[in-house]
């Protein structure tokens, strides 16, 4: 059993606070530590901003975010759905964090952070939608 909530918003970086407020409201009754909360917010930002920047090209579109909280409060699933260009961020080449210095390229840094800070990440494409799910275990 779990509790599930959902919002749909315009995929625009200006709406990032709406995503963060939505997740904060989902977590409000739990007493999770600040680091875990920040890591969840960071994962959400990176995925949402990716959708804002790349899913719809120059057009405008929506993003739906669902938050599913296990009844025991120990697991959170965040799912991000957009109907933009099919794109699997998980299968992209890993950013090379050892290629430091002045020439460093930082494309893919956001999804790298999501991989590092989440407990499980999955992608599928179906019914014309990109569906990316981030699993985070809660303390």
């Amino acid at each position: 059993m779990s509790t599930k909530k959902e919002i749909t918003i315009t995929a625009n970086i200006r709406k990032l606070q709406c995503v963060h407020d939505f997740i904060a409201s989902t977590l409000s009754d739990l007493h999770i530590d600040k680091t875990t909360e920040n890591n969840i917010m960071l994962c959400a930002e990176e995925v949402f901003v990716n959708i804002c920047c790349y899913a719809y090209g120059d057009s405008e579109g929506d993003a739906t975010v669902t938050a599913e909280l296990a009844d025991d409060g120990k697991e959170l699933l965040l799912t991000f759905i957009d109907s933009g260009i099919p794109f699997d961020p998980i299968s992209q080449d890993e950013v090379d964090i050892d290629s430091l210095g002045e020439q460093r390229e930082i494309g893919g840094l956001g999804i790298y952070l999501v991989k590092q800070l989440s407990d499980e990440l999955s992608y599928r494409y179906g019914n014309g939608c990109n569906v990316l799910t981030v699993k985070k275990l809660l303390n």
Partner: protein
Amino acid sequence: MAINAVVKDGVCSIKLTGKIDASYLLDVQDELFDKALVSTKIILDMSQVEYISSAGLRMLLSTHKTMAKKDGLVILNPSEGVMQILNITGFNKVLTIE
């Protein structure tokens, strides 16, 4: 949203607070860039920054590159949350952190 910056003898001291996310940077990035152009050195106090995303990291790297030709960018007292992200991404090896 403005940033709190003090410039003295070409050294620009900036204290950032709260969350350095993509939305925040839409408002402050140009101001930071302008400060970098007219300063010889930038000291960025991040002790009160609880959160930084890849957008914030990109801002740090571009400021670092701009200031590398001058006296540099210093990240001062990064919070535990910021330091975690700098370590995970290897930015701790690129940036000057004091």
